[in-house]
């Protein structure tokens, strides 16, 4: 088979997509993270680059710390991306019935992934911009190089790790180990779940060294910094060279492994289990006249507006990263990010009001106070992701005394958001129009709370 069948198909698809959809969707999806990274510079500067204005003796450790954190986060992103691109890829059904060369398929998938994530380079460069702004241009360049090296190692290493995980999942030699560690996960899936963690553990050995080399390298101390800087890339190249035979041996097996995993879940899932949604256990603790409304909202919201609900955890994670920092302003930053997440994700409440099916309004009794209480309670429950992640981070890093005000303020904001949403529900389809300015004002106020002095 000529080597470029997959590459040509990908190129043709890109061409048609651009012709039909135009450049705007592609450009905007690539530009958005870069713009966000650039706009967030005042915050990231205060939280992650506080060492630039502190005692010079903290410069090396501060630079190592921020580079390491970003590199590991990017490595984690690469692991997830590669899982989607090579294990749960949309084209698997199509390609699995053809005599494809697994090595070529995986190489083409990774090539596409590198293209799709090309924005990482300018976004990472924007994130580290405070270094250049403070006059440390060489450190800026080296830190970006370390992070991009970690990403490359993550992409190639994760592909190899998932393919190896398939062998482990099918091998009788590993059966007893898998049984011991799998918990409630199907045995076929356990190696795939442990693969990113294993990669993170192994890769971090090299990335820690590379991150530690940023400061000496930027001062012109080349040895052994160059070695540590190059090592993740060299290892990635070495893995890449072995990837083709590995993929040829295992690519088709991924298909039947994934089929087995899905079938296991399907066979476990009874009718009631199939209806289960995030947090539906909450309703057990509610009085019967509230329970029905809460369950309806939990199910409807999770099925129709899952992105907003999941985003609370994303916002919470960002706030937790801020809370984890040793910078003096970190708690204020965490609070600001948490408040923005709570008000932003609170939008789901008014959206639910807007897109509630008409037949439900006609069929169900008016509900009154119980219905409003259920809506507020459900919304507050969904928003807890944005509260508890930063609170835990603050409690571990700074102690309970400092975490408590953060908890109380964020919990209070969930109550205010819930009350606002319930009050605006009377406006039905116009609720969103009324909510957005209120949320915007709250968001700006939060930014002022967290703004670096």
């Amino acid at each position, binding site marked *: 088979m000529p080597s470029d069948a997959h590459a040509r198909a990908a190129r043709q698809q890109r061409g048609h997509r651009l012709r039909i959809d135009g450049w705007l969707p592609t450009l905007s999806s690539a530009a958005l993270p870069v713009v966000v990274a650039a706009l967030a510079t005042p915050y990231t500067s205060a939280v992650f680059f506080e060492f630039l204005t502190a005692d010079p003796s903290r410069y090396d450790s501060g630079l190592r710390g921020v580079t390491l954190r970003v590199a590991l986060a990017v490595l984690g992103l690469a692991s997830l991306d590669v899982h989607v691109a090579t294990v749960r890829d949309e084209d698997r059904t*199509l390609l699995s019935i053809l005599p494809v060369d697994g090595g070529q398929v995986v190489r083409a998938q990774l090539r596409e992934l590198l293209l799709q994530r090309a924005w990482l380079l300018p976004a990472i460069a924007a994130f580290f911009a405070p270094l250049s702004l403070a006059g440390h241009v060489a450190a800026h360049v080296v830190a970006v190089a370390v992070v991009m090296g970690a990403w490359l190692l993550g992409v190639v290493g994760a592909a190899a790790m998932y393919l190896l995980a398939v062998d482990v999942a099918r091998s009788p030699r590993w059966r007893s180990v898998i049984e011991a560690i799998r918990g409630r996960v199907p045995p076929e899936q356990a190696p795939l779940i442990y693969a990113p963690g294993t990669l993170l553990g192994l890769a971090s050995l090299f990335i820690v060294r590379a991150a530690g080399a940023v400061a000496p390298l930027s001062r012109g101390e080349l040895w052994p910094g160059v070695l540590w800087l190059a090592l993740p890339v060299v290892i990635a190249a070495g893995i890449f060279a072995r990837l083709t035979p590995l993929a040829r041996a295992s690519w088709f097996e991924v298909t039947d492994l994934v089929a087995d995993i899905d079938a296991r879940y399907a066979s476990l899932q009874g009718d009631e289990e199939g209806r289960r949604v995030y947090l539906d256990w909450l309703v057990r603790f509610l009085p019967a006249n509230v329970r029905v409304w809460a369950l309806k909202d939990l199910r409807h919201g999770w099925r129709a507006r899952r992105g907003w609900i999941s985003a609370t955890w994303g916002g919470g994670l960002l706030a937790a990263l801020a809370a984890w920092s040793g910078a003096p302003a970190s708690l204020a930053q965490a609070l600001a990010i948490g408040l923005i997440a709570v008000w932003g994700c609170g939008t789901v409440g008014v959206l639910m009001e807007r897109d509630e099916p008409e037949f439900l309004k006609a069929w169900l009794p008016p509900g009154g106070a119980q219905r409003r209480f259920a809506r507020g309670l459900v919304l507050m429950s969904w928003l807890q992701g944005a509260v508890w992640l930063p609170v835990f981070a603050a409690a571990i890093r700074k102690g309970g005394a400092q975490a408590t005000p953060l908890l109380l303020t964020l919990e209070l904001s969930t109550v205010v958001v819930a009350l606002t949403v319930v009050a605006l529900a009377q406006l039905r389809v116009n609720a969103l129009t009324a909510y957005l300015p209120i949320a915007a004002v709250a968001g700006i106020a939060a930014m002022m709370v967290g703004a670096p002095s």
Partner: protein
Amino acid sequence: MSVPAIHFENVRKLFGRVVAVDRVDLTIERGSFVGIIGHNGAGKSTSLRMLMGLVRPTEGRVLVQGVDVHQQPLEARRRVGAVPEESAVYPYLTAREFLEFVAEVRGGGDVERALELTGLGEDADRLLREYSQGMRRKTALAAALVGNPPVLVLDESLNGLDPPSAARVKATLRALVDEGTTVLLSTHVVDTVQAAADRVIMLAHGRVVADVQTASLGVGELERLFLERLEQSQEAGRR
């Protein structure tokens, strides 16, 4: 004795505790047109997916022209043109580009003939995202025909086709069988399979419950036999 086109050797497939296919032994000779029928959950799709290499048997082997589908996945796929029940295409390619891709992957194949056999010639340069469900199924069938694989496996492939298209596809399949291709077609529609196939295999609860030549059956007889065997299988299950 020649190597059979398809051979299921004591094949069993479990999904957790659920038995999807239960000790199926089956031999299909070269150049035959075989239909598989069965109730929902009878094991038709799982059997065909094992033949396509999408699902691995828990026990036993599935062979295509003597090649083990799971031990030699590449060799087996060179011998099989497959149309899964939920067949996929690249939506941002035209039908012609998609079939050219398939031909390249298969190491050659007559794209124009595949387009002509499935009646897609006039629409070949339209993007597949603009195609109806039925046209996408025809494209998937055309992809299975590219490269003239000796075995065609079609899972519910006539579903969603309008009557003229379905008739055209059946005629195409019959012509290919006459040229020596082996066709295995699963369907819910008993009349379709009786009219198209030479031999019909009935599955119920993962087992083969009947294996008959359609030439020996009168009008409506296949449906009667199917219902009778299904009832017997259910009764055996209850016991």
